[in-house]
């Protein structure tokens, strides 16, 4: 563990790793499969996580992301495949011996222990003497801004405070892998945002390899170095957030990440599609196996819009999003699309206005007509 030079780190009593140091371990999930009865929760999942990297697994309910995390933690056993940490296969190592910190979705503090004792629990299991344990636990509570609450019991803490104590508790054992199982989902929006920033900041300071499971794309995209989008027990794509958004590998990823319009179009051969009066190239092989009538997936910021008498759409609604206003337009065929426009330019696009919606010739994803 390398000493960090920040004041905050010194206050934390030397428990903090330096980012980029030897704090995090490389983790590899190889061909993990797991079934529950007839339900295949994981179907050959593979993922490599670099030391100190923050990877989020994102996906809808039932996609297998939590199962994957629980297999890494040692709470579930894979039917096949392996988990390696630091190149060592830990598949047969019990959870108690994996040295992984974990923060759970539900409040998991031990109700019979104070915040200080909760944080010190893992240190106690590692035979640290009471004085050292208390000093270190106190430093970690300080690190998450709760040193004043050391003697409080869980029922005396708010939800956000409990999750911060849980984070301190998970970090107290100086894990080389940190596992986060939707730790923010039970919190209200404001607290969630604060804790999201705190987790990311701590992870970067400590350099702990982190696997984060969430169904909230905003959380995943804003916190993680890389995001893996899961579907039906498999990874659809693993990429940095910007790539995931701008260059989704599949129609599922395109539609799952961010806001996406579905506009009816017709395939023109295997690699082109006719939509909104233009012929656009089809991204990758997404058109394979589809009939001629397809839905074209286009982001709101990709579409163009202009007020035009006798245009192809009517404005039905608009939502102010700060610098951008999202304009809802009903096209012919009762198709509604969302178009983002700079707020300064959207003033005249009032509900009922006739507009012309068009799109540039740019590669698009297509999917079966809904």
């Amino acid at each position, binding site marked *: 563990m390398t000493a960090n030079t920040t004041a905050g780190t010194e206050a934390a009593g030397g428990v903090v790793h330096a980012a980029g140091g030897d704090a995090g371990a490389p983790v590899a999930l190889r061909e993990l499969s797991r079934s529950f009865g007839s339900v295949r929760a994981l179907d050959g999942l593979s993922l490599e996580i670099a030391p100190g990297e923050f990877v989020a697994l994102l996906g809808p309910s039932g996609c297998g992301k939590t199962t994957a995390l629980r297999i890494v*933690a*040692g*709470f579930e056993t894979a039917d096949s495949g392996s988990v390696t940490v630091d190149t060592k296969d830990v598949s047969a190592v*019990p*959870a*108690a*011996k*994996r*040295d*992984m*910190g*974990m923060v*759970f979705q*539900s*409040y*998991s503090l*031990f*109700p*019979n222990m104070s915040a200080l004792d909760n944080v010190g*629990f*893992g240190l106690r*299991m*590692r035979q640290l003497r009471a004085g050292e344990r208390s000093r270190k636990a106190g430093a970690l509570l300080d690190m998450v801004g709760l040193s004043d609450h050391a003697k*409080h*019991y*869980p*029922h*005396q*803490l*708010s*939800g*956000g*405070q*409990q999750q911060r104590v*849980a984070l301190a*508790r*998970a970090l107290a*054992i100086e894990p080389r892998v940190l*596992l986060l199982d939707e730790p923010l989902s*039970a919190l209200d929006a*404001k*607290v969630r945002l*604060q804790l999201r920033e705190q987790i990311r900041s701590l992870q970067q300071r400590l350099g702990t390899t982190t696997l984060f499971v969430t169904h909230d794309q905003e959380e995943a995209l804003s916190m993680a170095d890389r995001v893996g989008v899961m579907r039906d027990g498999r990874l659809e794509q693993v990429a940095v957030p910007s790539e995931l958004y701008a260059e989704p590998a599949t129609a599922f990823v395109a539609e799952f990440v961010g806001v996406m319009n579905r506009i009816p179009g017709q395939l023109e051969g295997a690699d082109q599609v006719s939509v909104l009066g233009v012929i656009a190239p089809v991204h990758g092989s997404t058109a394979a196996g589809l009939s001629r009538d397809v839905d074209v997936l286009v982001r709101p910021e990709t579409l163009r819009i202009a007020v035009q008498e006798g245009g192809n759409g009517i404005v039905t609604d608009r939502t102010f999003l700060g610098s951008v206003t999202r304009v809802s337009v009903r096209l012919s065929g009762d198709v509604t699309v969302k178009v983002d426009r700079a707020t300064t330019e959207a003033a005249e696009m009032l509900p009922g206005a006739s507009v012309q919606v068009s799109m540039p010739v740019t590669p698009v994803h297509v999917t079966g007509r809904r």
Partner: protein
Amino acid sequence: MAAVADVAAGAQTPATRPATRRRSYPVWRWVILLLAGAYFLIPLYAALRFAGLKAFPDVFKQSGFFSAIGLSLRLALVTTVLTLVLMVPTTVYVHLRLPGIRRVMEGITILPIVIPPIVLIIGVLKVAPSFLLGTPYLLGLVYVILAMPFAYRSLDAGLRAFDLKTMVEASNSLGAGWLVTLWRVVLPNIRASMLSATVLTVALVLGEFTAASLALYVSFPVWIVQFEQNSGPVSVAASLMALFVTWLLLMVIVAVGGRSARRRGGAQVALFTVTRQDFSQTRGEPE
């Protein structure tokens, strides 16, 4: 009457009157409470009148009293320990690993209530280890079975009020093995339900007559019945004392468990239920 009630309510206007208190204790509840109280208290009062206060000191002078109460207390201790040692790990295991059979367990654990005591005694005699045969501690095995419905329900209620799976996994992830997790995490958080199970078990053993009588051991209830033939008033005084001491014991256990639980925000003990504060709704402090 309404006018009298208004006067009794004092100068408070309808707007300031504590309406919630009135709603909490409607008249019919008082009527039921009075009827139930009369049902229980009138026989006790009659017994007290029959025994007379002078009979109470005489209880301690009677032959066999101390050996009978001593046997009952020893049996209560043995039964409680055996019950907890058997039922706590079983209930925890069922909750953690076999949640699907909880209903089956509820059905199985209710059986001792519907099976006649003589059947239980014969069953226990068939399987009891030989070193227990001929000793009064054999009754302990019978009492463990008789206490099972109450102990299981208490422990089950306690485990339901506690996110056992997450706590165990959190403990494991921090490096604790199963025994440490049970000792440091699970048991402290089901202490209220263990107390409840203890209370019910002790009460059952101190008042159990049939099995002890059939097995020909003079426990306290058996002694009371036997002694009744010598002196009715002393026997009734002994019964009243037993009732009072049992009640006092139960209250002490409940009070101690409740105080500890309140201090730590844990589960509250009631004899047949264990309730825990809802952490998701009551937060001590704002962010």
